[in-house]
Structure formats: C-alpha cells, structure tokens
C-alpha cells in the first residue's frame, strides 16, 4: 500500500516536471491550475503513504535514511505549496519538483523495510529532533529553489518583484536557521541523556554546526554588508550544498554515531 502510494506520488511529480517544462514556454492559468493540482495530489499521496507507515510501525518514520528522506521530501512539498501561495513562478515549480523527484529516486535505492527501534533511539527526543530537522532542512531546500529562481530570472524581472523574492528567501532562511538551532539543541540534550556527552564532534554533529555557521554568516553578511539579491542568493545555494553534505554526504562517507541515518 505504502509503495503504491509512493509510486503514484512519484508518477504525479514526474508528470509535473513535464508540464512544468511545457509551462516555461507557454503558461496559461489553466496549466497553472493543473500544476497546482498535481502538487496537491502528490502531497496527498505522500501524506497517506507516511500515515500508512506510521500505522504499521507505531512511530514516526525517522529511524533510517529511507524514512528520513520520506519525511524530508514531505516537508519540502508542504513548505513548497505554502510558499507557492506567496510566490508563483514556473521556474520555482520546476526546481522544487526536480529536487523532490531526485530525493524520492534516491530513497528508492535504499532499504525500506521497517525495523524496530534500537535502545538509543527510544526517546521522545527522537520525534522532536527529527521534526525540527525536517522543518529546518525543508526551509533551506525551498530557499535554495527560490535562490535558483532569483539567479535565473534576475535579468528579466522587475526590481520590486526581485526584492520581494529576496525577502522571501531571507524569511525561509531565518525559519530554517531558528529550527536548525533547535535541531542542534535537541540533539545535544538527547545525546546527553543517552551517552552522557552532549557534544562529541561526531561528523554529523560537526557538519550540522558547519551548516549553522554558514547560514549565520549569511545572516550577518546580509545585515553588515547589505548582501542582498545576487550575492545573497549565491550564499543560499552554497548553504544548501552544505546541507546536502550534512544530510547525505556525511552518512555515506564519514562513519559516526548517526550511522543509522
């Protein structure tokens, strides 16, 4: 059931990419409504797939890389449809759609079987830590797509519209930054409960700190040097590359305490 729903969602999003590509050249209100419908249906099928998994395991899907990608993708889709109410652009639709499809594709290569929670993961902190993580990284992901839109449309968009886009990116980064702070804090409190060490310079921990420092530098550069617009967008893209290293690169290359995810 869960797989069927995920396949439906995946097929919808793939169709979405094709419609998006078409809409880059020839955009009508009807086409926009179709795209909107596709996103909502994909979000619905992903939501039901996650609910089915929660019902089967009795817990939040957060104990493996497969499960994390699933809820991370769901968070991106949620934040995307909310952001889309404020800023609508075929390039934004396309970039977000491609990102979500790539994530689901990556998940399809990972083992999806449910496994019982190991003792270290049996804590209410797991849910708080993971929920804050998907909001943080989801916000950075949507900000990254918008930064891509900024760079793509910079030369053929009105200044007021660009300023509005820049402001939206900033707000998403702030949301991500606040939640990333909470991810690090909840992770540290939890680690102290489990191992007696709130910080061990484990690669995942360290890279989450690196991510935090990069976005902190973005926020400070924006305020101090008035880094807005293009420079700001480039920094958001660099930030998201660091996010991808933190989430996936570290798990694939560097061993550590987060080896299960």
């Amino acid at each position, binding site marked *: 059931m869960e797989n069927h729903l995920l396949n439906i969602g995946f097929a919808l999003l793939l169709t979405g990419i094709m419609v998006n590509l078409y809409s880059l050249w020839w955009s009508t209100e009807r086409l926009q409504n179709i795209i909107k419908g596709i996103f909502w249906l994909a979000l619905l099928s992903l939501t039901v797939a996650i609910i089915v998994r929660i019902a089967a395991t009795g817990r939040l899907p957060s104990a493996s890389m497969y499960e994390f990608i699933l809820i991370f993708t769901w968070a991106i889709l949620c934040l995307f449809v909310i952001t889309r109410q404020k800023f609508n652009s075929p390039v934004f639709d396309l970039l977000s759609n491609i990102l979500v499809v790539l994530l689901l594709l990556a998940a399809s290569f990972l083992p999806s079987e449910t496994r*019982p929670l190991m*003792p270290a993961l049996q804590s209410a902190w797991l849910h708080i830590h993971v929920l804050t993580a998907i909001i943080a990284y989801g916000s950075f992901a949507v900000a990254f797509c918008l930064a891509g839109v900024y760079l793509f449309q910079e030369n053929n968009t009105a200044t007021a519209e660009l300023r509005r886009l820049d*402001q939206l990116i900033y*707000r998403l980064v702030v949301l991500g*930054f606040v939640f990333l702070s909470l991810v690090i804090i909840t992770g540290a409190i939890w680690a102290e409960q489990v191992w007696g060490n709130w910080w061990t310079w484990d690669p995942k921990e360290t890279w989450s*700190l690196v991510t935090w420092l*990069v976005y902190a530098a973005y926020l400070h550069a924006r305020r101090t040097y008035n880094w807005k617009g293009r420079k700001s967008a480039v920094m958001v893209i660099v930030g998201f590359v660091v996010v991808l290293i933190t989430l996936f690169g570290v798990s694939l290359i560097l061993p550590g305490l987060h080896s299960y995810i």
Partner: protein
Amino acid sequence: MNKQHPVKTIFPALTSMQTAIYLLILIALLSAVGTIIPQGEESRFYIQHYGQYPGTFITLLGLNHLYQVWWYQVLMGFLCLSLLLCSYQRLRRTCNLASTGSLILHLGMVVIIVGATWSLGYAKSVYLEINEGEAAFLKDYGLKEGYLQVKKFKVDYYPDHSPRQYYAHLSLQDYKGGNYEENIAVNHPLEAAGLKIYQTSWSWSMQADVIQDENKQQLSLQNGIAVPLPDNSSLEIKALFIPDYQEDGMGLQTKSPYPNNPRMLATLMKEGQIADMMVLAPGESQNLGGYTIVFQGFAPYTGLTIKEDRGVNMVFTGFALLSLGLLIRYRNLYRRKAA
C-alpha cells in the same frame, strides 16, 4: 614610529562585524577539516596515511585532535568576545527588542562555550563494568565517595532477537547517607548525589576455576577478553559465552540470546595462537592444555558511564538563552511586510 599596544589593535578588530564573519567562516572550515582527518590517532598513523611531510604537519599543528588544540580554543574565545562586543555595540546604537534578542542569543552562545570549556577542564567521566550482584566504591575510581551496587541486569529483546532495551537496577549510597535506588536504561540515566549514571554497555561474565597440580585459581572471565594465566605469562585463557547452545552440531552458534542452554567455549592461547579449545556446560570440568577448567557459573555484567559534570547545566542554560534570544530577535519576521 607609532607603536600601539596590542590590546588597542585587537579590541577594535573584535568589535567589527567583519571579524565575527571571518571567525565564523574560519571555524566552520576548520570544523569541517576535523571530520575529514581522522581524529585521535598516533602520529605514525598520519605519516603512514598522508606521507612524511603532510603527516608531520598534521601532528605538529594538532590537526589530529583539532577540537581540543589550544589555537582552536583561542579562536573560540575570540569568537565569544567578538559576539558579545558586536551585540553590545548594536544594542547601544539601536536599543530595541530585536537588538536585545540578538544580545541574549549571542550571550547564550558564550555561556555554551564557557560551559563546554568548564566541562573540558573539570568534568569527571568514568567507565565501570560491574557484574550483576556486585558493587564498586566510586572513590576508587576518582569520583566522590559512594557505594554503587548492580542488583539486577536485564536485556529485553524484540521477536527478531535484536535488543529492545537494557535495564540495570542500581542502588547508590552517597557519603551523606543518601540512598538511591533506580532502574536505569538507555535514555533513562540515574541522576543523584551530583552524579549521573548511564547504561552504556553489557556482556556476559563467566566464573571458572583453573586447576594445575594442587594449585587452584578462581577467574572471572569477560566474554571474548583474553586473560593471562596467573602462573604462566605466556599463556592466556579466553572464554566465549554461548547462551543457547545448539546440540545438533551446527557449530558454535546460539539459538537465541537467552541463557536457556549455556556453554562456555574456553580457548587456551599461546603467543596469540590457539593452543587448545573446549566447550563446557555449567558445573562441568575438562582438561585444557594440561589445566583442569571448571565452569562454575555465569552472570551478565553492565558497563556504566558515571559522570560528575556541572558544566552541562551551564551549557543547557546557554541553550535556553539562545532559543529565547532567537525567538525575541525574529519574533516579528512573519508579521511585518518587510524586515
């Protein structure tokens, strides 16, 4: 020549936001480097892996224990100062709620770093292995006075025999006469008498008599750990515990993790090589390379981490300040039309 006092040069630099940004980026880059270079290895490891000059360079700069090296700590100290000074200056220039939030969140970061440094210098952490039914005097391990007993140890398993949870029933008596009794588990440490006790590890311990001629030695053998025989330094005995032995000759595998049909696989090792090997049931005695081995009994032992660390409270206060500061700093972000 106009030579300024170093403090007069450093101070304005630390109040500049530019310095803060450079420090943030520098610390981010260095922290990332620390995840790429393996930490805590001997110097010859780096020479073997990276070559003579890069390996020596790594150990010389302390990149092999980067997060503890003095200059990394100094950078953190500078960042602390810079954060505080910048936030204070901003508050002086524009005294509003957002600036106050900014000051609180930066103060939170400083409190976290100070707490962490305090822990680095003064916290005590000891790892102890205690058999079920046995006890330890904590003062013997450099901690404050106390008597810690492991009354019971239990592992719960899922149907697929993967561990669900580890429980240790502890009794702690402190020097003031306080008595604390609690069932601890992973994620549920015991917090009492200024100590925190964590369930960290476990395994089986086997009691065996080793007899040669008229000489009888009682040994407590931990699962998989070789112990030198007391009267012969070149010989070691290693015991493996098989909780649920399969009688059907399917090798030395266990049917389940439960001690339904326990056996001890005793191995006599000479200079790292196996000299003799024997499987014994409880109460059974066998000849192992000229020694008579009697398998007297078995019990689980638990590995406990015991911590004395006041820095953690400071760090958690820093977390609270940081969260509060962020909330105040960005409270209006989604209300206003433009920031």
